């Protein structure tokens, strides 16, 4: 079974190589190659998961990669329930997104390139999932970051996309640096990169407590970069410049979950350091609330979903920080389904609605795209966490875990965020799918030709009219409506599959289920064994039922949020956000995402650039002075020697023969004996 995992990982890479080296000119073929490869990977992943379900436990297979004296670096595969779940989630979402992409990217000139990158990304993500040591994971971690860069900047002719790609890369790279430091720290103390050995070493107390905390926090810093946790969250909303399927795959279901996965994979570190757990929990909780408040004031459909993603990732981190290993991973899985669905649904709307992304230019789309609308509503309910959708079960588990850990403040933050989540999700649903068509809706004529090359996302003031654009005439809108229809089957099929999963996936985590999620994926302490701990966890999980107060609280908050959304947006007549008037200046702050980007820019401009200017002065005047002094000295010496190098062969020959003359003179008049020995003389 472990050897199958190699195939799972390398098939998408094979697709990438095949497309980029051979089949790039053949668009359709290139698409099918990736879909076929990822499909095969999916089937194999399911086989691995079934095997894992039948015989739970960690299996490892490694191959010596580098051996430098005492340093041994392996390239290995580590399969355990956590990895098996992730494999299936990644390959499934990747497969669905790629099927979807055949329609979404159908007109794009970079179609083959797109699928090649998708293959490369899937390969990197799967490699990250199965990695059995820190260094290997780091390699794939960076590869994933590279793919993210390539795909966000897919439409690189667009300056905003190129800038967003750069931003994403730099910000996540910032976090990666922390991860790298953590790896070096652990290696320095324990002399190994292997996850199991490191966890064992930490459990045996071979690492000072301070080092454990430092390593855990550094790992978390890396995870925060990839998972867009505050304060490194700024790249994710900008990453929406990429094609929507990319957002669905990378920035909703898989890559951003890599941070959560990393924390889960190295959980042994965190449980050994209470301080780091606390940091993880509070950063997660804060991010969840923070991003949710921003989401309620956004007007770009993809950005709303993006902030929702950040918020949900915050939930997962909070769960892990509160000791809810199972809850965090479970939410990671269910979230992958409904968030991918949200993005794909948003993409379906964008694709059919003249590449418009501003929700205030939409409205009443339910009539034209019923499947998209219904699946989006399912996803919104799942995201909000209403019984019996998938999000309910995982979010409920998180809240229970937080409650059991005793962080009551976090518990209420979590509950209140659930209200906000329901509110912003249904704000989106009501504004986009119901109510009257916006008077600012695009007429379609000017937008239609650039399908496949969408224009930059228009993030404007809520209520498109605020930008002073004239309303489009009713006649033009009626004309445009004739072009409106449901997306093709390759788009709606993945939507329906994901909607189905968003409904049923949660039931696996039904509390008290004898073979539920909790008895499959759990943290069993250090090392690969832990048979007794496993039995205990299984028993504990089987005994637990619903935590009724939490169920009631969370569902109450969700319904309240839903109701609020309906009151504000369900019966609106105009394309303007009533919330802006209610909240006043607060709304402006939210709309500008708390000015975090502006703060970063200000900070960089004043402090980083200032420091750089000082260093530049030192470099230019002192360091360069020394360097130039040495250079000038050598130039002087060279200038003297240069007199001899005048390029005129006869001068060279002259110098040569003068030297011969000197040599002969010395021989004859100073060394007659030597001369006699050389010349021999007549005997």
């Amino acid at each position, binding site marked *: 079974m472990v050897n199958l995992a190699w195939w799972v990982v390398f098939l998408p890479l094979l697709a990438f190589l095949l497309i980029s080296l051979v089949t790039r000119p053949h668009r359709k073929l290139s698409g099918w190659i990736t879909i076929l490869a990822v499909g095969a990977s999916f089937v194999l992943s399911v086989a691995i998961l079934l095997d894992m379900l039948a015989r739970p436990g960690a299996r490892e297979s490694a191959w010596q990669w580098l051996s430098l004296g005492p340093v041994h670096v392996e390239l290995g595969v580590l399969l355990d329930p956590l990895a098996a779940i992730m494999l299936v989630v990644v390959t499934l979402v990747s497969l669905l997104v790629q099927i979807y992409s055949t329609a979404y990217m159908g007109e794009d000139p970079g179609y083959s390139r797109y699928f090649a990158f998708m293959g490369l990304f899937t390969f990197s993500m799967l490699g990250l999932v199965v990695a059995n040591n820190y260094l290997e994971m780091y390699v794939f971690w960076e590869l994933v970051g590279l793919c993210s860069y390539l795909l966000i900047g897919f439409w690189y002719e667009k300056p905003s996309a190129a800038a967003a790609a750069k931003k994403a890369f730099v910000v996540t790279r910032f976090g990666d640096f922390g991860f790298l430091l953590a790896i070096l720290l652990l290696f320095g103390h324990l002399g190994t990169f292997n996850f199991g050995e490191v966890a064992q070493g930490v459990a045996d107390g071979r690492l000072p407590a301070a080092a454990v905390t430092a390593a855990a926090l550094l790992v978390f810093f890396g995870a925060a970069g990839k998972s867009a946790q505050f304060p490194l969250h700024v790249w994710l909303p900008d990453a929406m410049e990429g094609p929507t399927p990319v957002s669905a795959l990378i920035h909703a279901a898989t890559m951003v979950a890599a941070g959560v996965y990393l924390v889960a994979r190295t959980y042994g570190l965190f449980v050994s350091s209470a301080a780091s757990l606390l940091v993880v929990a509070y950063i997660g909780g804060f991010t969840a609330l923070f991003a949710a408040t921003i989401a309620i004031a956004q007007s770009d459909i993809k950005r709303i979903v993006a902030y929702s993603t950040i918020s949900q990732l915050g939930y997962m981190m909070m769960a892990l920080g509160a000791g809810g290993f199972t809850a965090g991973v479970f939410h990671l899985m269910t979230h992958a389904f409904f968030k991918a669905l949200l993005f794909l649904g948003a993409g379906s709307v964008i694709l059919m609605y003249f590449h418009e992304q501003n929700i205030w230019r939409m409205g009443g789309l339910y009539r034209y795209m019923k499947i998209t609308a219904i699946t989006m509503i399912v996803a919104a309910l799942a995201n909000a966490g209403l019984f019996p959708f998938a999000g309910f079960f995982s979010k409920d588990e998180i809240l229970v875990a937080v409650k059991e850990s005793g962080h009551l403040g976090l518990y209420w933050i979590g509950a209140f965020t659930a209200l906000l989540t329901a509110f912003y999700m249904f704000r989106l649903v009501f504004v986009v799918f119901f109510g009257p068509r916006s008077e600012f809706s695009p007429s379609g004529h000017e937008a239609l030709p650039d399908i496949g090359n969408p224009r930059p996302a228009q993030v404007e003031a809520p209520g498109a009219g605020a930008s002073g654009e004239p309303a489009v005439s009713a006649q033009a809108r009626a004309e445009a409506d004739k072009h409106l229809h449901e997306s093709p089957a390759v788009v709606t099929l993945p939507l329906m599959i994901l909607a189905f999963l968003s409904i049923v996936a949660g039931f696996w985590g039904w509390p008290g289920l004898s073979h539920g999620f909790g008895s499959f994926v759990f943290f069993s302490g250090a090392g690969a064994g832990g048979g007794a701990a496993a039995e205990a966890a299984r028993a504990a999980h089987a005994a637990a039922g619903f935590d009724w107060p939490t169920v009631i609280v969370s569902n109450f908050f969700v319904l309240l949020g839903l109701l609020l959304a309906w009151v504000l947006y369900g019966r609106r007549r105009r394309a303007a956000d009533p919330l802006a008037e209610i909240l006043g200046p607060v709304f402006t702050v939210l709309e500008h995402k708390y000015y975090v980007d502006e703060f970063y820019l200000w900070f960089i401009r004043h402090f980083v650039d200032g420091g750089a200017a000082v260093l530049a002065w030192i470099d230019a005047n002192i360091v360069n002075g020394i360097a130039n002094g040495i250079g000038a000295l050598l130039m002087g010496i060279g200038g003297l020697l240069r007199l001899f190098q005048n390029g005129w062969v006869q001068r060279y020959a002259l110098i040569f*023969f*003068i030297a011969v*003359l000197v040599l*002969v003179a010395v021989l004859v008049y100073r060394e007659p004996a030597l001369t006699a020995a050389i*010349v021999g003389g007549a005997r």
Partner: protein
Amino acid sequence: MSTDQLGSLLVFAGLAFLVVGGGLGVVFFRNVFHAAVSMAFAFLGVAGIYFSLQADFLGVIQVLIYIGAVAVIIAFAIMLTRRGDMAETNRFVSPGQLALGALTAAGLWVALLGLGLSQWPGQPAQAPPLPAGTDLTLSLGQLLLSQMALPFEIAAVLLLVALVGAVLIAREDHPGQGRREQPGEVGKS
């Protein structure tokens, strides 16, 4: 001094005059073509020296190669590079280099002559007589084709390479472009 010695001394003096005069002519003639002719005379003198040293084969080779080949291709080279008046084609360089060059050559002459005369003071005055029936050319031929066969072959390869290299260097850079058009070839390119 016997007549025989006097005769050989006279022959040597004549040949030395030819050699040194020819050499000086190469350096001091103003017309490079005259210098080349002068050089041919110096080569002829050297060939005579070889004969006087009983190196008959080398003397023949000297005439064939130096006068027959080298002097002729130098004459060709002069023709190919000539332009305008030939009268001032063989001038000296700038005075500084000229003075230093003259000093160096003279100094080397003095130093080496002193060295030679001090090490071999008039000795050996007489060359050992060759045994009767000695055929140096035959011995040389046998040596070249037996013991020295490998260097001989290498020298042959060297000549071939040098010839090919010379052709490669001297031909026009862009065949068909800078080439002089042959009659009947016009318009082909």
